[in-house]
């Protein structure tokens, strides 16, 4: 791969091989200690911090010329930042890209896990803004590292308990903390808690990259991932009262789209590829005929 330079004058997948090796070492360590945040020498990337530089570096480090890459943001392949990152790898690595979950070998994501069950030959790369699940309870890195080392997660349970006392619910709907292999409490990145169960016993390797915070962590295939809860307040994934307006799915995560200024709205799958496949298979939602083209997609 070393001589695989692309037309743009940069090394394959932008990063130099030395940097890739450094990142791969961090990834290997992360896989060896599931849920543990491994510090790594995050590089400045040609896109802003907070826009996926961690995920991009992880992807760049694991991508090979034969890979097929899918990039999603909010579950969609066509959101602006997903387009931008996909183009970046098309330009710097020249790899094949796809929007179909099943065809991808590497999937980089922001805020969602695809609806389709992932397989053993796939890697899911998460973009992570704040890797530290305890950060908003304790702002100091020096403190939170000690808390992880001592497995001191009392503060987190107190927070969840206070939620229930105050609101009657655990008031965390995304970035819902999980415990990995009964050891490390981990931030699943700001995916909605709807997606948390998908992380458990997942056949695919899951890698998490936080560029600005310079951390990598991982869930090897078939890792036990449990959302934190209480016996009398068990974890409940978000449920929707609606079906997808386009494909009629009742088991997917839905986006609410405001269609006019008179309270009109519709609910559609956030995973656009999944929704399109269902429609191609003949599933029809109640609003399929009348949804605006910008939402339903160009006639295919």
């Amino acid at each position, binding site marked *: 791969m070393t001589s695989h330079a692309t037309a743009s004058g*940069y090394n394959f997948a932008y990063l*130099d091989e030395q940097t890739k090796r450094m990142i791969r070492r961090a990834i290997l360590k992360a896989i060896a200690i599931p849920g543990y945040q491994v*510090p*790594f*020498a*995050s*590089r*400045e*990337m*040609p896109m*802003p*911090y*907070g*826009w996926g*530089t961690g995920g991009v570096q992880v992807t760049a480090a694991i991508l090979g010329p034969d890979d097929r890459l899918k990039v999603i*943001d*909010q*579950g*969609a392949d*066509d*959101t*602006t*930042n*997903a*387009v*931008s990152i996909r*183009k970046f790898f098309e330009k710097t690595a020249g790899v094949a890209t796809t929007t179909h979950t099943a065809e991808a070998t590497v999937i980089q994501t*922001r*805020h*969602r896990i695809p609806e389709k069950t992932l397989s053993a030959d796939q890697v899911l790369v998460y973009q992570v*803004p704040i890797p530290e699940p305890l950060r908003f309870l304790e702002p*100091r*890195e*020096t403190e939170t590292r000690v808390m992880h080392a001592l497995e001191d997660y009392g503060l987190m349970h107190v927070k969840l308990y206070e939620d229930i006392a105050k*609101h*009657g*619910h655990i*008031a965390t*709907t*995304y*970035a819902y903390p999980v415990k990995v292999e009964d050891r490390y409490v981990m931030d699943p990145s*700001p995916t*909605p*808690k*709807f997606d948390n169960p998908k992380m458990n016993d997942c056949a695919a390797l899951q890698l998490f990259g936080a560029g*600005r915070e*310079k951390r990598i962590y991982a869930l090897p295939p078939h890792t036990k991932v449990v959302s934190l809860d209480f016996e009398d307040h068990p974890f409940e994934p*978000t449920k*929707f009262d609606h079906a997808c307006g386009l494909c009629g799915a009742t088991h997917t*995560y*839905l*986006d*609410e789209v405001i269609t006019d200024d008179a309270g009109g709205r519709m609910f559609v799958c*956030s995973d*656009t590829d999944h929704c399109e496949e269902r429609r191609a298979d003949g599933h029809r939602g109640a609003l399929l005929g009348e949804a605006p*083209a*910008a*939402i339903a*997609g*160009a006639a295919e």
Partner: protein
Amino acid sequence: MYVAVKGGERAIDNAHRLLAHHRRGDPAVPEVAPAQIREQLTLSVDRVMTEGSLYDRDLAALAIKQARGDLVEAAFLVRAFRTTLPRFGATEPIDTGAMQVARRVSATFKDIPGGQVLGPTFDYTHRLIDFLLEAGGEPPEPARAAADETAMPRVTDLLGADDLIERNPPGDPDAPVPDLTREPLDLPAGRDLRLQNLARGDEGFLLALGYSTQRGFGRSHPFAGEIRLGEVEVELFSEDLGFAVPLGDITVTECQMVNQFKGSATEPPRLTRGYGLAFGHCERKTMGMALVDRALRAEELGEEVKAPAQDEEFVLMHSDNVQATGFVEHLKLPHYVDFQAELGLIRQMRREIAERQAAADVVLKEAAE
């Protein structure tokens, strides 16, 4: 719609084309050349080189042009370029005592060996808009004098000769040079790493933090011992040759703050130091940096750590404007999936409250009847 569910790719391309169009501005006005920026907006160039951590005037000027004059964006462009460059090694420490001085002032002594050299400064200008600049025209020739061969020792060295200021720890030439662009920042950081962080930190952030120490949030009784600007030689030790070879000259600004003295029953009192250094002419930056450097030494000097500027983790984790701007501005990216989850919970909680309220109303009504 910016989260184009379809057509995002074309929208992005068109946005970039429009950006290029706006960058050019009115085509009837001549286009600005990077060389003009390099020569005439030198302080912008200096700031971009400093915060971009790369000494290259031409590149910084081009970045300023590309960034439409947004200096944080320009520093970001320079950083993203810098990260792809190979690293040959670390140079020998520069000797600012041997600087070809263009400006040098000390607030602590009326006169010093080598004299006070004002150099090019805004300091005593009246801040009146100069409408003559609009018309352009050649400025008068600067006053000239024969080069003065008098040595210009650093003020802190003069104080050091009398043992009135804390001694700098002796340098260890064999100690590895930390590089926070190559290793993740590990806290607590040593002073060398802290200074590295501050040197590329945001000027505005350091200015505000330095200012806060002057207003009492971590006061350190600073005096501007010396601010000097000029050229220094950069040398790299060559393993092949067995000696240091000069690579060239760079212009730097150095600020040495002289602060609150410290002593004990056994140690005579000595003044303490705060240090600032930047590429080019960045006086405000180096002064803020020196104040913050001194504030961050609170623990080492046995002072109570209670102000933001004294808090290492707070300062070092938030000083970088490329990181800060990225994360603040990423709020522009779509977050509708998480927002939907939040909305769902709020609606559920409101529904539950309404139901409880309705049930309570029924009970009240029944009781009243």
